[in-house]
């Protein structure tokens, strides 16, 4: 019989282990989310990330080795972004009708996200690479990474901050919007998409299909605006 250590060292060479682990960890997170009655703070992404990070730490596996397997899942972010064309097309009539509220909320939400984050972090003495990495955190991952690199940030740190922002948005959106008594699904979804990109959009789709479509629009539009605004606003903090 082959020793477990030998099997492990064979498997650790290929992408299979970490691809399977990524799917399994997410499945556990999703099961916990369903078991909780879909409570927003039982976030499947957060649970999966904690489980996988703990596994990497215990097995002394470098992130690069993990990513060789997980990259197949990561790659699907591109086609999924393109796939947003379907809900955009389906809801085109409502989007055309709400163009003024959309543009106003986009400007207000996007500016608030960048300025308040930089202001708070800077007030606590954060500057340089870390501050630059924080600026594009509300934009969808592929845009945020590009902006971070362009303004002297660290793209991998930005990736983590983008995910944290998304999880935060997914968790706090429902309580905040209920507190503000916003009942319009378009307003709720759009604001979440602008502030918390794909993870917020995924959460909005779980709550309401129209909110999800508007969140997708908000995420797409804020990808454009953050690419323009974040570098400009950052110059005031340097």
């Amino acid at each position, binding site marked *: 019989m082959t020793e477990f250590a030998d099997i492990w060292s064979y498997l650790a060479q290929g992408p299979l282990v970490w691809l399977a682990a990524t*799917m399994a*960890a*997410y499945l556990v997170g999703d099961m916990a989310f369903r078991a909780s009655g879909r409570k927003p703070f039982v976030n*499947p992404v957060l649970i*999966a*990330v904690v489980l*996988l990070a703990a596994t990497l730490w215990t097995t002394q596996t470098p992130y690069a080795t993990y990513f060789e397997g*997980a990259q197949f899942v*990561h790659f699907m*972010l591109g*086609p999924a*972004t*393109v*796939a*947003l*064309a*379907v809900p*955009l097309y389906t809801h*085109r009539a409502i989007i055309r009708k*709400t163009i*003024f*509220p*959309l543009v106003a*909320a986009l400007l207000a939400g*996007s500016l*608030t*996200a960048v300025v*308040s984050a930089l202001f*708070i972090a800077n007030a*606590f003495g*954060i500057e340089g690479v*870390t501050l630059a990495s*924080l600026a594009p955190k*509300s934009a969808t*991952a*592929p*845009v945020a990474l590009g902006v971070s690199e362009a303004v002297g940030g660290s793209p*991998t740190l930005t990736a*983590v901050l983008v*995910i944290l922002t998304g*999880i*935060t*948005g997914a968790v*706090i959106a429902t309580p*905040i*919007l209920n507190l*503000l008594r916003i009942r*319009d699904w*378009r*307003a709720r979804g759009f*604001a979440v998409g*602008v*502030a918390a990109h794909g*993870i917020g*959009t*995924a*959460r909005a*789709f779980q709550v309401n299909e129209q909110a999800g479509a508007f969140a997708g629009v908000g995420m797409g539009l804020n*990808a*454009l605006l953050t690419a323009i605004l974040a570098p400009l606003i950052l110059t005031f903090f340097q």
Partner: protein
Amino acid sequence: MIQALTLLLSFQLIGEVAARALNLPLPGPVLGMLALVSLFILLPRAQEIARPVATALLANLSLLFVPAGVGIVGHLDRLGNDGAPILLAIVVSTGLAIGVGAVVFSAVARFAGVRDD
């Protein structure tokens, strides 16, 4: 499914090529999404081909963020020092942005007389 995946990947490719060739500040997939909406407007049948796979992908969008999120293991020392203020900045700014965005949306919608129906 193969047709739908080919459609999505081709439009991502078109987006990537356009972003680089025209030196646009936008990521390829976002341009691909805009191009695909244009195709649906010109050729509504294309939308029926893409719909099942697109819906399945978007329903499981959260999963796709897991690999990038696990990247946190490489930044634990930086987050150890500056973790609390960064977390505070993220939580407060995200909450503010959601609140401000939603309030502005409803206020302008009411002012412009755009009904929710």
